[in-house]
């Protein structure tokens, strides 16, 4: 137990940078850590406040329908599905293929203890992100709904247990993926492909569940719960606990959560070594030949290196390109199979104006979600010495990283705009308006991600999940990017929509120019001091 706690503590200290905070001594070190801490508090606080406002609004509506408890079920399902889904992609590099794997196995620690600490690590990460939704829900609920003393006890107990089952489900699916991938030659490519197919399967399944039967308006609450239960089978158990204070269901919830954890922990031991060894095997691609020696210019060579880094990590690709892939597939499918729906859409009054105004903003959001640069400095990790010791202009390093992001974004934006123009029969001016602003967003977010990562780099990661998904640079670029992309929605104007769209594009263009000036001056100085 001692070893388990020690391992878990080390994992969590490293993952959440707790060691940096508690080890900060003296004014200078505190000054270094403080902005990071404040930004974390601000980001989490801001997100939780936003969730609180949204949840409180929904509760008000549900009170009118006399079923406020539905919000508890909704949030529980949302947290569970998200936790399970994100865990699937964290299994690689956390449970399997972890950098500390060989080292830990060489120590006198039981394999089961190592596995337990890794699972608990995944659980705690899920718990922290679940808390961001569960705490605002709790506050909004007790403020708006009359609850008894039992509610507090039951909510608190289930609060800690909700992420357990999704973590185990995610681990199980992730393990099956890893077992398949480990037997194949092109591990990363297959991993990316399987993961994309899996995400589409989940979306398709939830779509099917939504359209399985029409809502029974007379019995709307049962209908909603049934639908959620189809998506996540523990929904009804949770509802019975929270709505009817059912002790039996609470016990069932506890037993199921802990039982699944224990069962998974014991059964995975058998496959752990096999999968890990297979995953660490590197495929010998081909024999070196003279024709492999190729001459490129400096910038193109840097770009090639960056793009190879990008495609070498399934997590990096999935975290940043999935939005673009989905946008293209949805628009493409709509254009090809839309049929009647397209005709109905075309009948909408002011359609082209709406598209020209909202289209760029939606594309802008996709640009923000597909930012690759906000972790690209941190991902240099222990290789940073190479870039720093070679005769490379720092500006070229930045450009090559921005180019990778633009390689993903610009073709997506171009194809999406063409499809929308084709579907809605827009004019050439409207097409340009549809494309111009998102392209500006793409340049803006690529530069901004890079700059924020320069301010908050992390080179001492052991798992790239930390810098790709949950670093302060990623959170901050997401928050600011969203603000820039969604900002125009909150400004009311009577201006012509096409003109307004161009105006937004011009404003983002000016912001981008200022940003790149800062990047190529202040950013260069920061890079030198890293």
């Amino acid at each position: 137990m001692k070893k388990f706690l020690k391992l878990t503590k080390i994992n969590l200290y490293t993952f959440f940078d707790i060691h940096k905070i508690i080890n900060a001594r003296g004014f200078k070190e505190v000054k270094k850590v403080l902005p990071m801490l404040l930004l974390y508090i601000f980001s989490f606080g801001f997100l939780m406040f936003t969730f609180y406002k949204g949840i409180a609004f929904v509760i008000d509506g549900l009170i009118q329908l006399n079923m406020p408890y539905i919000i508890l079920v909704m949030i529980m399902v949302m947290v569970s599905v998200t936790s399970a889904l994100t865990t699937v992609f964290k299994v690689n590099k956390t449970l399997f293929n972890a950098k500390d794997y060989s080292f830990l196995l060489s120590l006198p620690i039981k394999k089961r203890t190592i596995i337990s600490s890794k699972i608990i690590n995944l659980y705690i990460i899920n718990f922290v992100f679940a808390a961001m939704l569960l705490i605002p829900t709790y506050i909004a609920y007790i403020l708006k709904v009359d609850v008894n003393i039992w509610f507090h006890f039951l909510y608190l107990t289930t609060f800690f247990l909700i992420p357990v089952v999704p973590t185990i489900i995610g681990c199980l699916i992730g393990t099956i993926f890893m077992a398949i991938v480990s037997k194949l030659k092109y591990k990363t490519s297959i991993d990316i492909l399987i993961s994309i197919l899996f995400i589409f399967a989940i979306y398709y399944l939830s779509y099917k569940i939504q359209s399985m039967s029409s809502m029974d308006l007379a019995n709307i609450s049962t209908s909603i719960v049934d639908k959620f239960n189809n998506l996540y089978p523990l929904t009804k158990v949770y509802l019975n606990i929270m709505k009817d204070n059912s002790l039996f269901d609470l016990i069932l919830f506890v037993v199921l959560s802990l039982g699944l954890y224990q069962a998974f922990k014991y059964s995975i031991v058998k496959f752990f070594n096999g999968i890990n060894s297979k995953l660490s095997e590197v495929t010998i691609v081909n024999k070196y030949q003279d024709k492999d020696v190729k001459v490129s210019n400096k910038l193109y060579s840097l770009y090639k290196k960056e793009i190879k880094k990008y495609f070498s990590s399934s997590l990096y690709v999935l975290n940043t390109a999935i939005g673009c892939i989905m946008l293209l597939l949805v628009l493409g499918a709509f254009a090809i199979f839309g049929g009647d729906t397209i005709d109905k859409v075309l009948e909408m009054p002011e359609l082209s104006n709406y598209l020209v105004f909202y289209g760029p903003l939606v594309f802008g959001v996709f640009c923000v979600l597909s930012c690759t640069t906000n972790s690209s400095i941190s991902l240099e990790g222990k290789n940073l010495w190479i870039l720093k010791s070679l005769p490379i202009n720092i500006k070229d390093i930045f450009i090559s990283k921005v180019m990778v992001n633009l390689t993903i974004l610009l073709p997506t934006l171009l194809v999406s705009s063409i499809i929308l123009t084709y579907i809605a029969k827009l004019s050439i001016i409207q097409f340009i308006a549809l494309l111009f602003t998102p392209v500006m967003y793409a340049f803006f977010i690529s530069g901004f991600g890079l700059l924020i990562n320069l301010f908050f780099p992390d080179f001492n990661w052991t798992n790239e999940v930390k810098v790709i998904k949950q670093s302060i640079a990623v959170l901050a670029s997401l928050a600011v990017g969203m603000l820039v992309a969604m900002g125009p929605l909150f400004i009311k104007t009577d201006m012509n929509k096409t003109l307004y769209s161009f105006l937004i594009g011009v404003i983002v263009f000016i912001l981008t120019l200022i940003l790149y000036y800062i990047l190529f001056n202040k950013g260069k100085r920061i890079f030198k001091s890293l």
Partner: protein
Amino acid sequence: MIEIKNVTKKYGDKIVLNNMNLTIESGDIFAFVGHNGAGKTTCIKCMTDIIEFESGDILYDGISIKNEPLICKKNIAYIPDNPDLYEFLKGIDYLNFIADIFEMDSSRLEKINKYATEFELKESLGNPIGSYSHGMKQKLAIIGALIHEPKYIILDEPFVGLDPVATKKLKDHMIEMTKKGTSIFFSTHVLEVAEKLCNKIAIIKNGQLIKTGLMHDVLKDKSLEDIFMELENEKIS
């Protein structure tokens, strides 16, 4: 010629290099020795522009690395103590990358083949670096350092992880290159190698040079190990 002039480097309040002065002439093989944590790696990182230093300057043929880092680094090859290379690249991709950065033309093919054959790495160049052992990575880093024929070679513990054949090859290349005017500066804990290979030596302790000069002047009739231990004990007593 490399001139380290009054260089001071601090980590927080701790002085890691204290007003350091050193000159490495053209054709020198300069050994840099000292106990763990003495400041060797920090000094080397300052020389290669990996880290900044508070005061002083480092000049390559009179050009400051602080003011003109690109001009200086075009003539420098550096190998770190731990060859953390891009594991997602194939060996040949890494060498192509290095050659591109040093703007080498197609003549790189001949050099890559020559050094890869000598260091017995040619067969593995098509494989990802992630599949390499520590020694293979070290060999690849060495090939990357040699192919662009640098004027200055700065190495941090270059022989760690190398097999005896590769060690001998590297030593031979070091001697051969200094004959053509290349300056080599390297840190090591292997005092026998330093004694046999180098014409000059600098001993560092707690960020300060405590002995520097021609190898035979420093040694006189003693071994480097004896000198090193004497200096260590002197300071303690």
